């Protein structure tokens, strides 16, 4: 190798190392931002976090402000959303994977679901406003909000459940059929038990997505200020992200820190929900020995 070539090789290797560093930096950027974001929120919010904060109503005074109605509102909405979306989502996935024939129409449904997954969440809010609030005259209630959220997370649940159902080994399905079972018996006997961890994980992730959503519920008509406790599906409501949104937009500077405290509550709930997903997945993980 002559000098010229050696030099070139050195330069190429240099460039490789430099770019290696840059790529690493790109990755670390996300990590650092996450750390900064968390520290920033904890620093601002922790001093305001107390038991009173959890059980107080919102107030004009930052010190007296609490998150209780929003917390309950979020729990109501999420509970109903799950009840509505889970059976429909899993049922649709079972239909698409096990029952539907491989034809144009099925293709169309699948394409349609993929498209729905990409629709901005605020559009679902407009759907909710037009269909649930007005057309079905549910009003600006928890019920309307839950239906809206359910439709929003449905594509996520369907797609996750489809993946889980696809992962069921065909040898197990065949074994079941060979024992003289019908399709539905095989679905309930083999497919759902085997796919359940995947289905649950996907559904819980979808639920946590819904917990953090504010935009569609603003359109559906969550209240900005709630001074009562929602008692049932037909009550008006607010949810955590909307309460946080309101605080963050208030002119008094302290309210921004109250908002941070609200964010901590929201993040803790999300953490809890996601841990449940991980625990469920680990507990029910069923693997075939090879």
């Amino acid at each position, binding site marked *: 190798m002559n000098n010229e070539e050696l030099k070139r090789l050195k330069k190429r290797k240099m460039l490789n190392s430099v770019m290696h560093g840059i790529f690493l930096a790109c990755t670390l950027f996300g990590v650092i931002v996450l750390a900064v974001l968390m520290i920033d929120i904890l620093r601002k919010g922790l001093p305001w976090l107390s038991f009173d904060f959890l059980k107080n109503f919102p107030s004009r005074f930052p010190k007296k402000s609490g998150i209780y109605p929003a917390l309950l509102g979020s729990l109501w909405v999420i509970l109903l959303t799950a009840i509505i979306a889970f059976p429909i989502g899993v049922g649709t996935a079972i239909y698409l994977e096990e029952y539907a024939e491989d034809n144009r129409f099925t293709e169309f449904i699948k394409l349609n679901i993929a498209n729905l997954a990409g629709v901005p969440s605020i559009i679902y809010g407009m759907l909710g406003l037009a269909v649930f609030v007005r057309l079905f005259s549910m009003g600006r209630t928890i019920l309307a909000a839950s239906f809206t959220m359910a439709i929003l997370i449905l594509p996520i649940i369907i797609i996750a459940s489809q993946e889980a159902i696809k992962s069921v080994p065909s040898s*197990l399905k065949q*074994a*079941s059929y*060979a024992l*003289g*079972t*019908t399709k539905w018996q095989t679905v309930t006997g083999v497919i759902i038990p085997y796919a359940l961890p995947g289905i649950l994980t996907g559904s819980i992730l979808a639920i946590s997505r819904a917990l953090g959503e504010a935009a569609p519920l603003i359109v559906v008509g969550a209240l900005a200020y709630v001074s009562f406790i929602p008692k049932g599906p037909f009550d008006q409501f607010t949810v955590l992200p909307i309460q946080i949104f309101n605080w963050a937009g208030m002119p008094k500077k302290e309210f921004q820190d109250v908002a941070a405290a609200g964010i901590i509550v929201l993040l803790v709930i999300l953490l809890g929900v996601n841990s449940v997903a991980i625990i469920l997945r680990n507990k029910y993980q069923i693997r*075939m020995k090879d």
Partner: protein
Amino acid sequence: MEPILSIRNLNFYYGEHKALKDVNMDIYKNNVTAFIGPSGCGKSTFLRTLNRMNDFIENVKVEGNIIYEGKDIYSKEMEPVELRRRIGMVFQKPNPFPKTIYENIVYGLRKNGVNKKEVLDEVVEKTLKAVALYDEVKDKIHKSALELSGGQQQRLCIARAIAMQPDVVLMDEPTSALDPISTMKIEELVLELKKDYTIIIVTHSMQQAARISDYTAFFLNGEVVEYDETSKIFSNPRDKRTEDYITGRFG
């Protein structure tokens, strides 16, 4: 002797590909019938036509008749679910459900509406004994079936099939994934089981066919070249191709 299954002029297609050509055969009750032949000749395909497991493969076509109890199994009167209850199947690779041993055995019964505990308990014990697994697993009947060895799993799959009290048990190379000892146990089991069941077994082992079967069919390229009593096939084959195959001179 009366045949339990009569196959007449059977053709089978995967799309355009004709995998079975004009198969005619009578399967006799309480006998072991072995299917032999080189890889890809259609043994598994034929086996699956007998309990309509081919229904799950897309784009296939069946022509001809398979008569079981006086009815064509591909006719409208025959419910495939019902048929599979009567003609059970054991697969090449052991495929127990990720459930307990007990639940594996009673799976088919439960699904068919049998839920009485005494009945299920009795069936579990009897079938485990029938497949000579009882002593090995009696302490872990409520443990996961996946903890069993491959050979034990395969015997469990046989137990699961006979728990349905079928008339016929189809076995597709049930020992090809197993060690020699497990293979031997399953062979003994097959000989034991033929008292109560009619057994059809696909095998790549000439010795196995010779050891356990009463009838043997030799398949080649989707055709049945020769079908006769096993002793005749192995001692005095009529067709040159059969002779070549069983003496190992083939291909």
